[in-house]
């Protein structure tokens, strides 16, 4: 594997930021500091990190309701992000979007999206822009297993394929659409087989293996950059937490503790740490330093969010029209 050590260390750091950020959000949410809904990405970090490590600022992503990991991996800053979760004026969306709508067009983040399957056509549109005006740039669309049953999936993959758009469709198969398991919502195991129906390559990878994700996404993204069209990349993973914070017993009504435990043991970060140690890329001490550094960065973001003001009520009437 010819991945530069610098990239490998960055992958690790990105995963750690996402994990630590989400764990902090979990705690802040439980203590009533963060209002609304929080859909945590814990357990799925390898996908956002592995995919986005192949992207530059000029490439685009569309994200989902479970979007914190994607936007962090795409380069979102923690302070305006945390402030947005708090609904504060200094947030990415001036507090008007919240957890499900974090966006920064300048970083190519076309928004997390509260509608399951809502991001797919938007990624197609970004792909159209790239094809018409910015050859070499790509759009990556994150969506879940359950969204692959939405009509937008079919329309978007077909559209992107027939027009050879530079779009990579990354399906994060975490096994559940809220409470409904994959076996209950579709009669297939590998979602990537659907790619054949659109005339594009379909690949399924272990979504908890960051290097595998990185390489598979890299191949699909390079193909898109070369103008050879879209790919459907399915990354199998698992959602450790409930659908949202507040889902009783982390989804205990519809899945067993043993299943959750098995996936917790398959932790993408733990597995990567073993790889890093074994291959002498990073020492335990270096890894510990990353956690500490990240921890303090996140604490700063919390302080920033808590000290920021809420938007004035007049803000409600701004930005309805441009």
């Amino acid at each position, binding site marked *: 594997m010819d991945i530069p050590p610098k990239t490998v260390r960055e992958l690790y750091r990105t995963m750690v930021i996402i994990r630590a950020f989400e764990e902090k959000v979990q705690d802040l949410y439980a203590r009533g500091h963060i209002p609304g809904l929080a859909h945590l990405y814990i357990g799925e970090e390898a996908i956002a990190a592995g995919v986005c490590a192949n992207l530059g600022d000029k490439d685009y992503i569309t994200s989902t309701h479970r979007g914190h990991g994607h936007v962090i991996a795409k380069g979102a800053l923690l302070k305006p992000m945390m402030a947005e979760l708090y609904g504060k004026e200094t947030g990415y969306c001036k507090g008007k979007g919240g957890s499900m709508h974090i966006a920064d067009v300048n970083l190519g983040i076309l928004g997390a999206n509260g509608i399951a399957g809502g991001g*797919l056509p938007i990624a197609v549109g970004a792909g*159209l822009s790239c094809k018409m005006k910015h050859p070499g740039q790509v759009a990556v669309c994150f969506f879940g297993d359950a969204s692959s049953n939405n009509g937008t999936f079919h329309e978007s993959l077909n559209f992107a394929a027939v027009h050879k758009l530079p779009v990579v469709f990354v399906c994060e198969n975490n096994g559940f659409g809220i409470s409904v398991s994959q076996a209950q919502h579709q009669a297939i195991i590998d979602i990537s087989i659907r790619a054949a129906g659109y005339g594009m390559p379909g690949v399924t990878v272990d979504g908890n293996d960051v290097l595998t994700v990185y390489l598979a996404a890299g191949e699909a993204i390079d193909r898109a950059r070369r103008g050879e069209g879209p790919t459907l990349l399915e990354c199998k993973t698992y959602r450790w937490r409930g659908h949202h914070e507040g889902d009783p017993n982390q989804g205990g009504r519809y899945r067993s503790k043993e299943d959750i435990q098995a996936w917790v043991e398959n932790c993408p970060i733990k597995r990567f740490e073993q790889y890093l140690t074994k291959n002498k890329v990073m020492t335990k001490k270096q890894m510990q330093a990353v956690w500490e550094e990240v921890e303090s960065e996140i604490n700063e973001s919390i302080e920033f969010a808590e000290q920021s003001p809420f938007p004035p009520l007049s803000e409600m009437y701004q930005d309805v029209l441009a």
Partner: protein
Amino acid sequence: MSRIITYAQALNEALAYCMDQDDSVFIMGEDVGRYGGIFQVTAGLQDRFGVDRVMDTPISEAAFVGGAVGAAMTGMRPVVEIMFIDFITVAMDMVVNQMAKMHFMFGGRAKVPMVIRVNIGAGRGTAAQHSQSFHAIFQHIPGIKIAMPSTPHDAKGMLIEAIQDDNPVLFVEHKKMYIDKGEVPEEAYTVPIGKAKVVRPGKDITVVATLNMVAKALTVAEEMAAQGVDMEVIDLRSLCPLDREAVLASVRKTGTLITADEGCHTGNMGAELAALVAEQALDSLQAPIVRVAGPDTPVAFSPPLEQAYIPSEQDIKDAVARVLEYL
């Protein structure tokens, strides 16, 4: 210099002008390419601007409306054609939850400069799923401008304005008007979206109309003038922004309001104007507000039933007669 061309040709000129001026403008839709669009609005544009900029899409409204949202957010100015407004329902998430929300939801950091062209209206024998006039639904969704040009002149000027606008614009045409002819300047110009136009000043009765109801109201106004009734006819031209001041000023002058729009009666544009006047000019009213609208039914296919559906000049005359009882 002006010449007489059709409403469809006027729209075509606006599209050609904008595509010529700005290479970020492109067209997507079903059969808009070689076919020229079901009503020939995009005729000849693919030959002139190429297949990438005048793009035939699969029958996938959600994909191409949502695609326009994504393209607009990333620097393009897409113009999409929905063949009949009836078909926009299959792209409703993209219109309501995506297109209309992005600018606000992202704190003003994203812009969605796109146009969705639709047509409304019964009268071509196209039955219940190709004849609806439910444009007023979109008035209920903050974040969408709604343009409704009633003449070839306004069609050209408002479409150029819509394409150059940084907001999403729902551009509502009437399928019976595409062959209407009128004077249209050859050069480019814009007509604002959000400014109603007093097309016939009068002092006795106010009629606020949209699209082809404007011409019907004008015909009635000329007839009534012969009987000594001076009607003021306002072309509303846009549901959002809604030119409340123009409507209120006229109602305060005449003490009356008749609305005329082809959408079915309940919840149509007239309902909003009636509420506006009730809230802000009730003390000016000398007669009940009367709404001329389609009936609360789907559009039937059978020709006599379809004709009975369409709000007519007679319906406007009946409304005027009702108002006159109070004056």
